[in-house]
């Protein structure tokens, strides 16, 4: 059974049809990519899966359950975590607090014990702190910045903190919106390694949007291609790469060889 399934999702903003009967799925424990040119509707798809956008038609299924009617916080509580294309960290908080916020859905402390920081509140705080330190902060190698305000961090690290926050939710399905955009080669390699390790160690299903085709080829099991809000191809990375329609979508019009290289993420391509 597919872990996450999107069936015939359609979404329009006024006259703009962002998604047209989009169906994709993510296999349990796999790394699935959604690719497509700018404005294809990838982020809109993620937002619809999160529940932030309300699609006009179609449904979203998690673990064989229809979650289309649920509000975003409920979906998060069911194990749907994500990062954002335009980093959405909470700028008034430290790295540690941002990550702890991810644990919100798994904690229960009520108002009264919070005000006095009595037994339950204290125990829970210390428990999640310990867990986050061990499983997230050490794992992502960000222990040196835990007390820093997130706004002061370089871009690459901010992306990593976003991943940390999503992991602190202990998600079932992790959605990453362009996790390596704007990173240099070294940072990209780190991030690719983290994503692979996450799959190994965390028992999660990864669904990611990515423009960097090299990375998609390297780490993904399955790829869906979106163009103008429609799925135009799906399959193994190598199959998709060779699909003439995909090439045309990326090309618009132009020289096919450059494009093929660009899709492969080879040197010299922007």
């Amino acid at each position, binding site marked *: 059974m597919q872990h996450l399934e999107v069936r015939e999702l359609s979404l329009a903003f006024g006259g703009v049809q962002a998604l047209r009967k989009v169906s994709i799925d993510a296999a349990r424990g796999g790394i699935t990519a959604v690719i497509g040119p700018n404005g294809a509707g990838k*982020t809109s798809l993620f*937002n619809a899966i999160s529940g932030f956008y309300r699609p006009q038609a179609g449904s979203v299924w998690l673990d064989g359950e229809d979650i289309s009617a649920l509000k975003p916080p409920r979906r998060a509580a069911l194990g749907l975590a994500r990062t*954002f294309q335009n980093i*959405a960290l909470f700028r008034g908080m430290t790295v540690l607090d941002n990550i702890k916020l991810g644990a919100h859905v798994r904690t229960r402390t009520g108002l009264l014990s919070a005000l006095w920081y009595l037994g339950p509140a204290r125990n829970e705080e210390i428990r999640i702190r310990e867990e986050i330190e061990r499983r997230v902060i050490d794992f992502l190698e960000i222990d040196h910045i835990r007390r820093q305000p997130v706004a002061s961090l370089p871009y690459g690290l901010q992306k990593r903190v976003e991943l940390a926050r999503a992991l602190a939710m202990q998600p079932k399905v992790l959605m990453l919106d362009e996790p390596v955009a704007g990173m240099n080669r070294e940072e990209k390699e780190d991030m690719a390694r983290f994503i692979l390790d996450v799959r190994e160690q965390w028992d999660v299903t990864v669904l990611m949007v990515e423009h960097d085709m090299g990375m998609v080829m390297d780490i993904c099991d399955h790829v869906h291609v979106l163009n103008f809000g429609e799925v135009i191809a799906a399959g193994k990375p190598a199959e998709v790469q060779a699909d003439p329609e995909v090439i045309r979508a990326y090309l618009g019009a132009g020289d096919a060889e450059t494009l093929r290289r660009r899709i492969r993420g080879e040197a010299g391509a922007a």
Partner: protein
Amino acid sequence: MQGLIEFIEISLTGLGMGGLYALTGVAFVLIYKATRVINLAIGEMLMVGAYLFFGLAAGLALPWWLAILFALAGGGLLGLLLERAVIRPMLGENPISVFMVTIGLGSILVGLVELIWTADPRRLPQFLPDEPIFLGPVFVFPEPFWSFVIAAAVIGVFVLLFRYWRGGVALRATALDQGAAYAMGINVPRVYALAWMLAGMIAAGAGMLLGSIAGLSPALALFGLTVLVVVIVGGLDSVPGVLLAGILIGWIESLAGSYLGGEYEHLVTFALLLVVLLVRPWGLFGTPEVERL
């Protein structure tokens, strides 16, 4: 029959106030559209205009028309000054900070006025015709009548200005899309200054009219709160919305005040505001804000 006439009289008085709400609302929307600032000090700017007129006409004993001209100029200058000294440095800040800055400005203006003229109520020199007006059997108080006429005329002039005058076109372009306005070579900071100056003048004018209806005191600034309700009901960025809402609220207030009692005037307005906020927060004609993730 008597009841009907009374109803019409009350309604017409309400329309008089409504005209002033609409006029001040236009000043508010002007600032909002051009600079995206919610100016809570609009009531205080209006009050300062009325006091300037009082100071010039009663204090310096200038002829009333000259005093009006100077007071309008003073209101415009005040708008320019506020924009330059306080609002411009705050551009790009969190809108809530800018909003709170205008609360502070309001407080400064009230303090200044009380320092110069004390908080005692005053009477504005008469400049509106004061013969009672009869429309058939219906009696209308002269001040609300004339202020409605003047407000309508001023609004009409401004609507034409926005449409045809170069500065007005620049204003509308900036309101629509600041980046594009820049690209078209519009001097955006100058547009900001212009918007504040015009708003200051309109507010001063409305202040003089209001002062001649309601008498002069620092409490005039509270008028700004009702104007806030008007612009929210109409839609922060919509001139037609504000005109309609201004008239509507002036009318409702007048009805509530006459049939329920004076203390209900504001209650009804603010209750209406809460309803609008719950049902249609962007107002009758405003554009809903779209958020992206």
